[in-house]
């Protein structure tokens, strides 16, 4: 897939994944890969800089736990600000994909389930 398309929604994918439960870097790549049925393959070179950036912006917070193998593992969880940003990005994505879908399909009735115009969910 075109990497430029992915780079625009990496943050949203990471926030959505972390919003389900606290998790760590490797697990995030696997979950995104599975849920997208192999379509999104996050590279570590972009994953960790994005995670660290979102942590410094206050969207995520991290903590360390020890694994069974004796390694230290860094977990990330969503902050209240991150939850707000997550909902906003989701709403933005819905509008974006619906608009693109309308232009691409040219069908005002939105056959085939054009993206729903989200009710006004303002964080």
């Amino acid at each position: 897939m075109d990497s430029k398309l992915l780079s625009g929604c990496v943050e949203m994918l990471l926030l959505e994944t972390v919003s389900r439960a606290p998790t760590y870097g490797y697990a995030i790549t696997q979950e995104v890969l599975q849920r997208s049925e192999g379509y999104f393959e996050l590279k570590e070179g972009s994953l960790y800089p994005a995670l660290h950036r979102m942590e410094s912006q206050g969207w995520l917070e991290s903590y360390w736990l020890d694994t069974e193998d004796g390694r230290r593992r860094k977990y990330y969880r969503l902050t209240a600000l991150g939850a707000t940003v997550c909902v906003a990005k989701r709403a933005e994505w819905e509008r974006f994909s619906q608009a693109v879908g309308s232009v691409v399909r040219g069908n005002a009735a939105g056959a085939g389930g054009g993206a729903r115009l989200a009710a006004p969910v303002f964080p």
Partner: protein
Amino acid sequence: MLWDKNEIAESLPPVHRVEPPSLRAEILDELADHLACAMQRELRRTPDVKAARKAVIARFGNPASVARALWFQAMKEAIMKDRIMLMAVGVLTLAVVVLAAFSWVSLRENQKTNRSLLAALKELRASSSAANPSAVSSDLANATIKVVEGQENGRPIQGFRVELRGNPFRDSQDEWLAQHTNGEGVASFGPINPGNYNMKISDENKKMETIGEGITLYGGRGFEKTVVLPEVQETDVHLELNLPDALKEKPLVVALSFVADNRKASPWYAQHKIGIASDGSMYSFSSELEDFGRKLFVQKLPAASRFHVPALEYRLEELEVGLPQKENGGDSKSDERGVKYDVVRKTGHESRSGPVFQALPGVENKWKIEIPQDLVAQIETEVKAREIQKVLGTVDPGVADRVSGKIVKVYPVVKDCMVLAYIPDWNRGDVDNTAVANNDGGVRTLLDWPRIAGEEGAGEGRRFLLALYSRETTIGVSTAPGAIGIYEILGDWPERTAWKAQPAVAKDPRAKFNFEPGDGWKLFDVTPIIHERGETGRTAYGVELRFAEENRTSQDWSGYAFVSREGEKEPARRPVLLAVDIESSGAAAATSDASITSRAAATTEGAAPSVPTRTR
């Protein structure tokens, strides 16, 4: 371990002065954990360790590069701040050095100049004294002012203040001199600098003064002038405030400024300020201009106080009307200066066309004060707005414009959330908005308010209106939106309720309302629900607002986005329940959006609206 942490660590830049102590270790531990997990995954595919490691690197990339990128990202801001700080210190040091050098050079130059000036001055003084011993006295002037009453050879007036204020010829600074006339009515000045002066004479007891007169004093000469002033008696004035009936009961104060400055009638100038209240009591006052409007400080005068003025002709220069200060429910705030009022408006008469009043000696003068009609209207509006605001408190006063009747109490909504059919898990009842929409299964809003005590809910003319502020109203273009129904909630619910965990609601709506386009306050009459709660005493859990039909498409939906009770940016527009008393004429009903129908009456959309009646 398959990857040497030290090898990765060596690829990082040297430890920086401002680097957090745990940064390196955390980066290495995080990457090492990821590599180990990836290795485990590859080893499940192949037992060949070399092949597994190669596959991991192919996907991960060079661990050292990733570690460096993370280090630089973390350190970027810290390094930039450090560099800026160093530069700023360097520049500051340089500036201090330059300033010190400059100051030292200036000091040396000044010392040289001062020495040469002193020498020149000594020389000049020596030669001047030798040439002209009396030069000092011919530079100055004398002035003698005599004040008499009535005519040139009239009675001299003692105790009047004579003031000279002006510019000496050889000095840029003003002179300001004052003397009181003695037993012979004379005030003497001198020796003083010659120049142009403005002379004023004032009677400090009666608070009047003459309009200024210009005189010129020359060096070496005396100046004499006799000023003839008419005798002025003091007289009593009674003020009568003419207010319309609607304002007679209101606690307002009118501050008046009278000025006597008609030179054709008298050389005397006087100004008097007095205040009178709607109950006839009198005040002295001072006005102060503050950042947020003009305030009056007034002090009430004792009941027996008289308003004495010199018997002159006055014009009303300024009129201010003050209402009690808008704080703590509208009570006036008092301090050591008196009681504080907000000025509604001030009218000036800068064109000198204000009404004229005569203060005649030996009689009690009655001055009638009329408030201009436009100012009366403005005061009435302000008074009414304050009464409404007292009830509304912090709620947006715009809601009152939507209500027919008198708002008597405001209850805040204590719980609200919205649920969305197409995001069934979403349970953010703490966001700053709620909504009602008719697309994709629907968006609904749940609300609850405090229990209303029986006597507060009773009364034939008492209505209860749920007021929600729509900050964004959307209306579909092709189909009519349909009605919004209010459904009674039958079980308890937490504020963070999701669609899939909605509480049960009554099968039929208690009332229906037509959808109204446009942003702003939307009102929903919930009177029957409150009356029923009061009558039956049963526990109640609030109401749900939803469209009757919730199957519109995403291209043609309608809905309101309301400010919720968590709306921090719009606290005045948070949802409230209004208790409204309708006019006893019985003709008006609580204003609510479009049609109102209740369970007691026929409920078909588009039917003529009917006023809900209490069922007993």
